[in-house]
C-alpha cells in the first residue's frame, strides 16, 4: 500500500485511486436530516470533480488560495480536495474565530475563494469583505436563511457543482482537462496552508506539501497498522493539523471512512452510533468524559455506586497490566472479566468507545490518572507528540510501550535530538516548507540542514528511551534563588485535578512561585450542589471561601509531589488566587487550541500579579471581555489571594 500511495502522491490522485480500489466502500458519512447520509469513494470522486470543475468555471487558478471555514462537513473536506485537484491551495480557518482574525488570515494568505458552512460564516465574511479586494467568490454549503442575499459574489455549493456537472456533460474535453490537472500535481507541490494560532504574536501560515502529508500519513498508518476498515468521527477544528491528518490525510491514504456528526450537541451520540475505531482527542476531552461519568454516577443508587467504585478500583489495579499482557493472577483476571461484564463493557458502550482499537491523546500532557483510567478500562490510549510544522508526527508510543509521563519514540522516518539548552529538535519527511511570506521566522525555526526547533524543552528518558517533555523551552526559567522552574510542568500537575480547569504559574526571576487558577464549572459546580453551596454566577462560585479551601488542599498536594523531585523541589507554590473569569480564546487569553498565552495573561492581569507578590490579601481587577455575539464589555471584581504550605527543602539541593 505504501507503494500504491507513493504512486498516488497527491490527495486528488489518492481519491482517484480509492475510487478504483474501494469504489463501493463508504468514504464519508454525515448525519444529516436525522439519518446517516453515505458517500462511497466513487461518489466522492464524482462530487469533488463536479465542484472542482465548477470552481475552474468560476475562475479559480492554479496556486489560487481557497479558504475553508466551518465545522466538519463532508462538503468542506471535498472542497479541499477539489481545490488541490486544480493545484490551488486550501486554507482552513477556525470556524469560531471572530471577523478580525479571519480578515487577517484571508488577507495574508491572499485568498480568492472562500468555501464556508452557513449563514453565520457568510455574515462574518460579508462584514469584512470590503477590506478583502482579492476575495472574489464565497461558496456556502447550508442554504438556510441565505436565499434573499445578494448573490453577485455568493454561490451555493450545489450551484457550483451544477455548473461543473453541466460543463462536464457539455464535452469530454473538460473531464480530460480536469484529469490532466490532477495528473500534473506533484508531490512537492504545496498541499495546504495551516495557520497556527501561535502562542505569541500573529498566526503563521505553515506550508505543507503533499509529500509532507502523504508520507507522514502513510508512515502513521504503518506505525499503527491502520487499514480501510477504520471508522473515525471528525469533530475537531478543520484548521488544526490534527484533524487534517487524522480525518483527511490518513483516510485518503488508508481508504477508511470519515464520519461527520449532526451537530456539536450530538457528537457523543453520533460517536456511539458509528462506533469509531480510531480516535484522536486532546486530553481535555478524555478528562471531560471521565468527569461526566463520575458526576453521573454520584446520582446512582448506593448499591450500584459501590459496585461501580469497586470494579473501577479493580480496573485501576489490574486493567493496565492486562491490557499490556503482563502476568496477572487468575482471580484478578476473573474479577476483571466480571467487571468488564458489569461495568466496563456497558460504560464503554454508553460512552461510545467500545470499538476503539486505538486512541491518541496529544497537544498537551494528559493527567496520569486520566490516562491510566482509560487504559485500565481496556482502551488502547496512547500518547503522541507532534506539531503542525511536522505534519503531526514526531514521536508516538508503540503498542505495549505505554507510559503516562512520556510521549513515546520517534515515528518512522523521524530523527529527534536534544539541544544543549534542552530544546527538542527533529527532522522528518513531514517537515514543513516554511511559514508563508515569513522567511526570517522560517529561518529561526528551521536550520539550514533541515532540523526544526520544536520550542519545547525535554529529554530522552534513559530507561525507556522515550521522549519526555517538561515545558516550552523559552518558559523554563529560574527563581531568584536559582531553583529551576518549569511552569507548564507545575501547571499540568495542578490541572490534573478535575476541579482545576486552567492554571498559570509565575516565578521566573522572582522570589517565589505563585499561581492563578480557573475552576472547572462542571466539577466544582456539582461539588457545590452536593454540599448545598448556593452561587449565582461563575464569579461568585470562584470567589467562594470553601472553594478556596478545597483548591488550597490541591495546591499543597502539588507542593508535596514537587518536593519529591530533586530538580523541581525548589519551585513550590507559595500563594495562589482563583480568577473571577474563565480564560477565553475570544479574549486572546488562550489559543483556539486552549493553550494559555502566559505573557499576554501576565499583562492583562498585571494588578493581580503585583498583588500576588506584594503580599496583599486581595486585589481589584477590571478587564474587557468579549461575549459570544462579539460585543465587548467591562468585567471587574476583587479577587482574594491565599497563602499555602510548602514542604521545606534542604538548602544544598537548591540550584540543582
Amino acid at each position: 500500500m505504501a507503494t500504491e500511495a507513493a504512486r498516488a502522491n497527491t490527495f486528488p490522485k489518492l481519491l482517484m485511486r480509492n475510487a478504483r480500489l474501494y469504489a463501493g466502500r463508504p468514504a464519508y458519512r454525515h448525519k444529516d436530516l436525522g439519518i446517516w447520509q453515505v458517500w462511497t469513494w466513487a461518489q466522492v470522486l464524482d462530487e469533488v470533480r463536479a465542484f472542482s470543475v465548477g470552481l475552474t468555471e468560476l475562475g479559480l487558478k492554479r496556486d489560487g488560495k481557497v479558504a475553508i471555514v466551518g465545522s466538519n462537513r463532508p462538503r468542506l473536506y471535498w472542497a479541499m480536495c477539489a481545490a488541490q485537484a486544480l493545484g490551488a491551495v486550501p486554507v482552513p480557518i477556525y470556524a469560531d474565530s471572530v471577523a478580525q482574525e479571519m480578515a487577517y488570515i484571508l488577507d495574508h494568505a491572499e485568498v480568492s475563494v472562500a468555501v464556508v458552512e452557513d449563514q453565520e460564516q457568510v455574515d462574518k465574511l460579508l462584514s469584512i469583505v470590503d477590506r478583502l479586494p482579492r476575495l472574489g467568490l464565497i461558496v456556502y454549503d447550508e442554504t438556510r436563511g441565505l436565499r434573499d442575499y445578494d448573490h453577485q459574489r455568493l454561490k451555493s455549493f450545489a450551484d457550483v457543482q451544477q455548473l461543473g456537472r453541466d460543463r462536464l456533460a457539455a464535452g469530454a474535453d473538460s473531464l480530460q482537462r480536469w484529469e490532466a490537472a490532477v495528473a500534473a500535481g506533484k508531490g512537492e507541490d504545496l498541499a495546504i496552508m495551516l495557520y497556527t494560532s501561535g502562542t505569541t504574536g500573529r498566526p503563521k501560515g505553515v506550508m505543507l506539501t503533499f509529500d509532507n502529508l502523504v508520507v507522514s500519513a502513510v508512515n502513521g498508518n504503518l506505525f499503527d497498522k491502520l487499514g480501510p476498515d477504520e471508522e473515525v468521527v471528525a469533530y475537531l477544528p478543520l484548521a488544526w493539523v490534527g484533524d487534517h491528518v487524522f480525518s483527511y490525510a490518513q483516510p485518503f491514504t488508508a481508504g477508511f471512512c470519515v464520519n461527520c456528526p449532526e451537530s456539536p450537541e450530538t457528537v457523543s451520540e453520533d460517536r456511539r452510533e458509528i462506533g469509531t475505531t480510531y480516535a484522536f482527542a486532546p486530553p481535555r476531552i478524555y478528562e471531560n468524559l471521565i468527569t461526566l461519568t463520575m458526576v453521573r454516577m454520584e446520582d446512582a443508587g448506593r448499591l450500584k455506586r459501590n459496585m461501580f467504585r469497586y470494579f473501577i478500583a479493580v480496573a485501576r489495579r489490574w486493567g493496565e497490566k492486562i491490557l499490556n499482557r503482563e502476568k496477572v493472577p487468575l482471580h484478578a483476571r476473573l474479577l476483571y472479566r466480571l467487571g468488564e461484564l458489569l461495568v466496563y463493557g456497558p460504560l464503554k458502550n454508553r460512552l461510545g468507545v467500545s470499538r476503539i482499537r486505538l486512541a491518541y491523546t496529544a497537544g498537551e500532557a494528559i493527567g496520569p490518572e486520566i490516562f491510566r483510567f482509560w487504559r485500565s478500562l481496556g482502551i488502547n490510549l496512547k500518547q503522541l507528540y507532534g506539531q503542525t510544522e511536522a505534519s503531526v508526527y514526531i514521536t508516538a508510543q508503540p503498542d505495549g510501550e505505554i507510559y503516562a509521563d512520556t510521549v513515546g519514540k520517534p515515528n518512522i522516518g523521524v530523527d529527534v535530538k536534544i539541544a544543549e539548552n534542552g530544546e527538542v529538535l527533529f527532522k522528518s519527511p513531514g517537515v514543513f516548507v516554511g511559514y508563508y511570506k515569513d522567511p526570517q521566522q522560517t529561518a529561526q525555526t528551521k536550520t539550514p540542514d533541515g532540523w526544526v526547533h520544536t520550542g519545547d524543552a525535554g529529554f530522552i528518558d534513559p530507561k525507556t528511551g522515550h521522549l519526555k517533555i517538561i515545558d516550552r523551552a523559552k518558559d523554563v526559567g529560574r527563581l531568584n534563588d536559582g531553583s529551576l522552574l518549569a511552569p507548564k510542568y507545575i501547571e499540568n500537575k495542578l490541572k490534573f485535578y478535575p476541579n482545576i480547569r486552567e492554571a498559570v504559574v509565575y516565578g521566573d526571576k522572582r522570589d517565589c512561585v505563585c499561581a492563578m487558577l480557573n475552576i472547572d464549572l462542571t466539577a466544582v459546580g456539582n461539588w457545590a450542589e452536593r454540599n448545598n453551596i448556593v452561587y449565582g454566577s461563575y464569579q461568585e462560585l470562584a470567589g467562594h471561601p470553601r472553594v478556596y479551601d478545597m483548591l488550597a488542599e490541591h495546591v499543597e498536594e502539588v507542593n508535596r509531589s514537587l518536593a519529591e523531585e530533586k530538580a523541581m523541589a525548589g519551585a513550590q507554590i507559595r500563594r495562589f488566587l482563583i480568577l473571577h473569569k474563565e480564560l477565553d480564546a475570544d479574549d486572546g487569553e488562550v489559543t483556539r487550541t486552549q493553550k494559555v498565552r502566559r505573557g499576554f495573561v501576565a499583562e492583562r492581569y498585571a494588578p493581580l500579579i503585583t498583588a500576588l507578590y506584594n503580599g496583599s490579601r486581595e486585589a481589584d481587577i477590571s478587564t474587557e471581555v468579549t461575549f459570544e455575539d462579539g460585543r465587548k464589555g467591562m468585567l471587574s471584581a476583587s479577587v482574594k489571594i491565599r497563602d499555602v504550605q510548602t514542604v521545606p527543602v534542604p538548602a544544598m539541593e537548591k540550584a540543582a
Partner: protein
Amino acid sequence: MDSGAHSPGSSEGPFGRNDSTGNYGMRAPSEQDIVAGNVLLAVENVSLAFGGVKAVAGVSFDIRKGEIRAIIGPNGAGKTSMLNVINGFYHPQQGRITFKGKPRAAMRPYEAALGGIARTFQNVALFKGMTALDNIMAGRTLKMRRGFFWQLLRFGPALAEEIEQRRRVEEIIDFLKIQHIRKVQVGKLPYGLQKRVELGRALAMEPDLLLLDEPMAGMNLEEKEDMSRFILDVNAHYGTTIALIEHDMGVVMDLSDRVLVLDHGVKIADGTPAEVQADQAVIDAYLGVSH
C-alpha cells in the same frame, strides 16, 4: 423545503438581507398592494361576547401577505380571543372575516387549518405523550393522502409517503436546530424547547397565515433572541405571513411591520411600530402595565 404555500409577495427580491440583525428593507405594502388584493385576511367590525362579558367589540383590521403583524395590549385586552376567532374556535356574534378574498361563514378550526391557518398557543399545547418528531409529523397530517389499507400494510405508497414527509419534517427540525431532542417525549422538554417544537408543528402545516400567541412568554433573553431569529427566518425563508401576540415590546418593535393595539376588546391604535409607540392612547393603556 419549498412549499406550495409561498405567497409571491414574500420573497424579498431586491431588498437583500445584508446584515445579520434581520431587518428587511421596507416591507409594509403600499395602498396598491391592497388594491391588488394583497390583503390576506380582513377582519371587519367583529364582536364576541361570553354571556354578558364582551371579549372583542367591533374590531376591524387586516393582515397583508408576507408581513409580520403584531397584536398587543394589556392583559384581558381580547388578543387571544381575536386569534381564536380567526382560526375558528369562537364564532363572533357579529362582524365579517375575509380570508384570501373569500368572506367565510362560521367554520371549525380544522377547516381553518385546511384553509392554511396555523397557530401556536400561549401555554404550549403539544401532544405530551408523543416525541418531538411525532408532534411535528402530526402537523403534516393534512399533507398525507394514503388511505387506510396502505397504512395497514405500511408498504409501497404509504411507506414512501411516510418517508417523504419524514424528510420534510427533518428539514424543519434542522431549521429549528432541535436535532438533539428529536426523539424525546415533549413532556420531558424544557419550556423553551417545547415552544420551539410547537412552532415546528405549526410550520409543518406550511401555512399561509401563522398565528403565534406569545411565542416568547417565559423565555430567557437568549431563548427570546433565538425565537425572534426563527420567526424572521420563517417569514423570509418560507414567505409565511405571521400574526403574533407578544408582551415584550422590544421584540414587537424589532419583529413587526405593523402593530395592532387592543384594550378591553376595543382597537385603540393600528400602524407601524413607530407610530404606535408615539400614540397617546397606547401610552395611557400601558400606564402601570410594565412589560
